[in-house]
């Protein structure tokens, strides 16, 4: 087992210098998700207008994998249409299942491919993406 497969420099950078960490005064969608088996928490806010994710922020508590994944997800999702965001989330699931998928629009995410070799940690990586899916679903139900 190679730890460096899991903890790549890009991941540690997102963990130590998180992007989009914080809260909006007026986020249009807020999703709170827990990982009950380990206590990781995320509160994700999405600003969705005209079917486009204009902005995203998050707060939370968790390990380097869950928090760096949230940092990357919020970066990647900005400016995407709701459909594109959903497709991104599906592609991330495929990455976690070990499939050879690419994120040319936000390459940092590919650093998380090593998580696939650590089955116990996949839940950590997917927490933020599950929040994204839930947020998009809630937004679409509003309409």
């Amino acid at each position, binding site marked *: 087992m190679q730890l460096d497969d899991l903890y790549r420099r890009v991941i540690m950078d997102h963990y130590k210098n998180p992007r989009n960490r914080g809260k909006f005064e007026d986020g249009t969608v807020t999703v709170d998700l827990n990982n009950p088996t380990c206590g990781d928490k995320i509160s994700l806010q999405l600003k969705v207008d005209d079917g486009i994710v204009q902005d995203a922020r998050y707060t939370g508590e968790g390990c380097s994998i869950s928090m760096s994944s949230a940092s990357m997800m919020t970066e990647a999702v900005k400016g995407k249409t709701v459909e594109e965001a959903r497709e991104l989330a599906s592609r991330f699931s495929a990455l976690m299942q070990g499939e050879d998928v690419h994120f040319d629009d936000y390459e940092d995410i590919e650093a998380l491919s090593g998580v696939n070799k650590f089955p116990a*940690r996949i839940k950590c990586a997917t927490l933020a993406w599950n929040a994204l899916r839930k947020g998009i679903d809630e937004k679409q139900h509003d309409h």
Partner: protein
Amino acid sequence: MNNAIREQFPILKQEINGHPLVYLDSAATSQKPLAVIEALRHYYEYDNANVHRGVHTLGSRATDAYEGAREKVAKFIHAKSTKEIVFTRGTTTALNMVASSYARSILSEGDEIVLTPMEHHSNLIPWQQVAKATGAVLKYVKLQEDGTVTLSEVEKVVSDKTKIVTMAYVSNVMGVINPVKEIAALAHRHGAVMVVDGAQSTPHMKVDVQDLDCDFYAFSGHKMCGPTGIGVLYGKQALLEKMEPVEFGGEMIDDVGLYDSSWKELPWKFEGGTPIIAGAVGLGAAIDFLESIGLDAIAAHEHELAEYAVGRLSEIEGLKLYGPRARKVGLVTFNLGDVHPHDVATVLDASGIAIRAGHHCCQPLMRWLEASSTARASFYLYNTKEDVDRLISALIQTKEYFG
């Protein structure tokens, strides 16, 4: 403790990720000695049959093995009789039985249940549920700053409204032994019953339910070298007699009519369905194994490892240790600076060291500790000082890795 004991645990003789396994998660579940594995194998190879009904020889052998295990359990915890020993799936089931059968029948609105914020979820949620159903109120004992429970704090919340006092004998996070004997006496002075969660105490120290004078005592086989899926509810006979069964069906009946039925005598009225026969046989073998080494010797060994571990962990700068420094129980809970416990556990696993990371089924206690999660290393009779040394060097490496 010596290598001869380690030799009894085949699982420990393997490499994990290229390193010899160091198993430091016995508070979650213990490993199993050959004697237990062989007992299960022997039961299934030679004696397997259903119990209490077969006229045939195998039926008698299986019944003897099952009831023989009950006798071992009764002696092991010093119960007055085997009528007071109910086999369950584990501690969780045993505590739920007390809450849903005994507690629901005696509690009314305004009655109080006293417990602590350090309870495992399995000794917390059943009481929340019974409180919601009956209108009873949960009263929490305030913990000391170091996470211990004192009799004087318990005295502040126990009153004549108290009907049940419940507590872990040993905390699965703080590694403290709670004064349950004194608290049971206090509960009795107020007419309340004392329920003890013995999941973390029974594997590691001598337990005498008559000396504790607790009314109910629950524990699991798998944490004490036995198989998973078997546990015990001890209850004083007079209380168990009054309780309604929780599960109805085969095995637990005396006479069944179209509209009404009656129950078997104790303890079988609580054991509906085909019981956990092999599990009980395995638990009996685990008890024999532990007694052959001696519970006092096991406790002394763990005490020594705990003191050694606390001393060595204190050498690591930035490591936060939870609970009192002086400890007898072989369990240490900590955080390594800002490194998240999951990351600690993953890096340790890469060195072949198994620890637990998370909330340890104690979310209220985590809030009290102001930690979202913690890392925990727990020791048992097969662990050594070398295991602690391996833990310490791996923690130092982890700190450097994330530094």
